[in-house]
């Protein structure tokens, strides 16, 4: 109201813009109606001012009146009609008013007051800025003072108590977990759904502020060092997890022989698991544990589903929280879900059979499921970009490169988790058996040394071991290498000459094979030794047809003659009984002509073989004994 309107203001031709939408269209204010504009203009009239003028006028008139009054007062004494004049005047006034009232009543032209919207006042910007600055400054001071106060109390509280702020905790939680706000509650999700899991069970948890009832017990005003509160690292945040995800779970995998105490495993829920979760656990550990429970549940659920669906020759059994699959005849793979709820406080001692728990297989189960998850989300992108989403690069190329049926079939082949874990378990057992057989033979058989080298590289279902049979001190003379491939259900042995032997899962077969190779090794080694000694190998056979029938394999033999040809050694080696050595002299040192053998030359035909008692001979091992034997027979005695 500080300005006066002496200029007439006209409305702009354009209508005012009420609002500009995001797409740029402008919405105009509808133009004012006549009465509205009248009201608007009327509102601009400063009535007070005119009244002021009136008042001034009146004042001046009053002044003049008072002048006149004083004049009147002065004149009243001299003018006697004064009272008549005033009466006339007042009656004129009355009549005038009456006439006005009558005119208004008759013609109905009177003023109506309407409320009119005040137009925003345009003030000088600088003034406004100063004003606002001052106002803001005032507000800021208030806020700063308040903040200072809060900070003080905060630091004091922090000094007094170890509790963290709820919001900071929430921030930390948000950095690691998925959270969302639903009305007044904060809901989190710990399921593996975002990483490709298709398990139906939800993994929601609720985040709440820790209850306040604890706070009064430790008011910040009364810091009690050594009190019961600081001993408990309290969190301002509480996560509540659905009961089915509480506790600790793990997947137990064990391989066991037939009919071993099956029920005892079933009874105990608590294994060698980590200590049970207590309600005071930190939320991070709590959530991780719950997530692990969910994962184990999904894994077990998946395996159980597959176990029911798979058509195995010996059907898989799913009983309660346990899946039983026959891996090899007599050997079972048992996969169990062990889940202990937090309410179950008492610790039970793990049964002794738990020691068989196979951590490697458990790990690979976890790995397999994670692989499934990964595959569910990581689909390859097509190149070029217009290609369809979904098919792998290999499948995309199958058309143009004309992949055949076999390749296309291979692409569609997938193995279930259970199949894969059964295969791994089979291989695991095969490997264990092979190891055992090789180690026991190496322990039993001392004469040729048996060393086995396991490959450094192997796959979960395939490994390889190299076996060297050699004799101590004669390793440069002869060495028999063997390669054994350990598969899922079978063994394959490859010799240096390219012979391949396929064996089943029975460890006895491998044992027999190694024994056969040991006996053949002895014969080959004797011949190689003879060569270095200057002896001549007359003949050999790996599969001797003569002699007693062997319980396993065939005996092998060879004949050696001395450099001069007057001594012959025969060696026969049986897989079970070991080597036998016989010696023949020709000619015999003493010759007596008889009627049948008249001349000495016939004695060269060879004489009687006589057995050598090897066990009585000097020498570290068989080859050493043979070397000594040959050496003694070569001498010109």
């Amino acid at each position: 109201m500080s300005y006066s309107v002496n200029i007439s203001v006209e409305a702009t031709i354009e209508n005012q813009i009420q609002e500009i939408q995001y797409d740029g269209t402008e919405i105009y204010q509808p133009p004012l109606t006549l009465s509205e504009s009248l009201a608007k203009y009327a509102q601009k009239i400063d009535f007070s001012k005119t009244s002021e003028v009136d008042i001034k006028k009146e004042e001046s008139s009053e002044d003049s009146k008072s002048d006149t009054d004083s004049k009147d007062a002065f004149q009243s004494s001299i003018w006697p009609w004064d009272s008549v004049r005033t009466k006339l005047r007042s009656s004129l006034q009355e009549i005038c008013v009456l006439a006005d009232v009558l005119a208004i009543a008759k013609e109905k032209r009177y003023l109506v007051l309407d409320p009119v919207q005040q137009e925003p006042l345009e003030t000088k910007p600088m003034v406004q800025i100063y004003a606002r600055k001052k106002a803001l400054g005032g507000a800021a001071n208030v806020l700063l003072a308040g903040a200072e106060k809060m900070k003080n109390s905060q630091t004091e509280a922090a000094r007094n108590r170890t509790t963290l702020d709820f919001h900071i905790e929430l921030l930390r939680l948000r950095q690691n977990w998925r959270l969302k706000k639903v009305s007044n509650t904060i809901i989190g999700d710990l399921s593996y759904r975002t990483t490709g899991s298709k398990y139906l069970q939800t993994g929601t948890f609720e985040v709440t502020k820790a209850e306040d009832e604890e706070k009064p017990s430790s008011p910040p005003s009364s810091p009690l060092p050594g009190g019961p509160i600081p001993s408990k690292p309290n969190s301002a945040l509480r996560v509540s997890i659905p009961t089915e995800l509480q506790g600790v779970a793990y997947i137990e995998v064990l391989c066991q022989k037939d009919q071993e105490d099956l029920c005892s495993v079933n009874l105990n829920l608590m294994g060698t698991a980590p200590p049970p979760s207590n309600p005071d656990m930190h939320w991070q550990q709590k959530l991780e544990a719950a997530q692990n429970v969910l994962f184990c549940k999904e894994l077990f659920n998946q395996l159980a589903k597959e176990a029911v669906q798979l058509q195995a020759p010996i059907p898989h059994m799913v009983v309660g929280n346990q899946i039983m699959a026959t891996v090899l005849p007599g050997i079972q793979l048992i996969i169990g879900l062990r889940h202990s709820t937090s309410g179950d406080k008492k610790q039970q001692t793990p049964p002794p059979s738990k020691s068989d728990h196979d951590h490697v297989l458990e790990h690979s189960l976890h790995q397999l499921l994670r692989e499934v998850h990964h595959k569910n989300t990581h689909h390859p992108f097509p190149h070029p970009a217009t290609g369809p989403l979904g098919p792998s690069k290999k499948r995309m190329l199958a058309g143009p490169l004309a992949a055949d049926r076999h390749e296309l079939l291979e692409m569609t082949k997938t193995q279930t988790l259970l199949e894969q874990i059964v295969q791994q378990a089979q291989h695991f057992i095969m490997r264990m058996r092979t190891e055992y057989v090789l180690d026991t033979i190496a322990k039993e058989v001392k004469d040729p040394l048996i060393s086995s080298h396991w490959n450094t590289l192997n796959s979960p279902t395939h490994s390889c071991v190299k076996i060297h049979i050699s004799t101590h001190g004669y390793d440069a003379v002869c060495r028999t290498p063997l390669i054994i491939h350990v598969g899922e259900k079978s063994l394959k042995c490859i010799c240096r000459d390219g012979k391949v032997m396929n064996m089943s899962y029975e460890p006895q077969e491998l044992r027999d094979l190694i024994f056969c190779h040991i006996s053949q090794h002895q014969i080959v080694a004797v011949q190689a030794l003879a060569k270095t000694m200057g002896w001549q190998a007359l003949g050999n056979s790996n599969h001797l047809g003569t002699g007693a029938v062997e319980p396993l394999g065939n005996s092998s033999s060879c004949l050696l003659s001395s450099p001069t040809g007057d001594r012959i050694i025969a060696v026969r080696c049986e897989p079970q009984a070991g080597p036998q050595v016989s010696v023949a002299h020709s000619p015999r040192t003493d010759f007596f002509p008889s009627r049948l053998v008249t001349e000495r030359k016939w004695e060269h035909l060879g004489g009687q073989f006589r057995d050598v008692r090897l066990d009585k001979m000097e020498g570290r091992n068989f080859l050493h004994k043979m070397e000594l034997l040959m050496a003694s027979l070569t001498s010109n005695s």
Partner: protein
Amino acid sequence: MGVTILTQFNTENRSGPQNIEILSKRILALGATQQGQFLVDCETYTSVPQLGHQRTVHVLHNSEQPATVFSLLETGAKTIPLATDGLFDLLMMKMSHFYTSKKQTKSESKGPRYEIGDFCVKLGTVTVSSNFKGVLVEVEYRPCVVPAMCWDLLKEFLQGFLGLSGPTTPPTYLQNRMQENYSPIDTIHQYLEHFTMFRKSPGIGMRP
């Protein structure tokens, strides 16, 4: 992916099924096992006259490569091969304004499929618009991709089971491609060659 030799088997006054039966007996005696059936079919499209000089598109399917449609475009001057996804047939339908199919030349070879070691043997009865035309024997040696390397080996195999009527020289199509890497489209070329021959020939042995 291996090298394939396609050869006609002389009918020798026997009907098609008899020939197939004789060959099946022989191959089974060698120790082969039957692994389903096979089918190679060929449809020919020609360009409409408005499109300028005449071009022919042969569209072939081979059940050995079920995800692939092979097409050979003959312009007179050259032949351009193309291998695509199965949806190419759909495209040919869309192109029916420009390329029309000649139904009477629809040819196919179908019959039993045998596997023996690394060999794959197919005994096909050829029909052109459902008229019997002859017998085609396909032998594939899968591990090898260079025809020159394994031609002798294949010849030995073919003669071992077709007898004297086995081929003594490589198929004409392969003769100047012996050193190149063999690909499934080469098999298709051989089939097309035989199909065109059968189409031209009058119906020999009309017994189906």
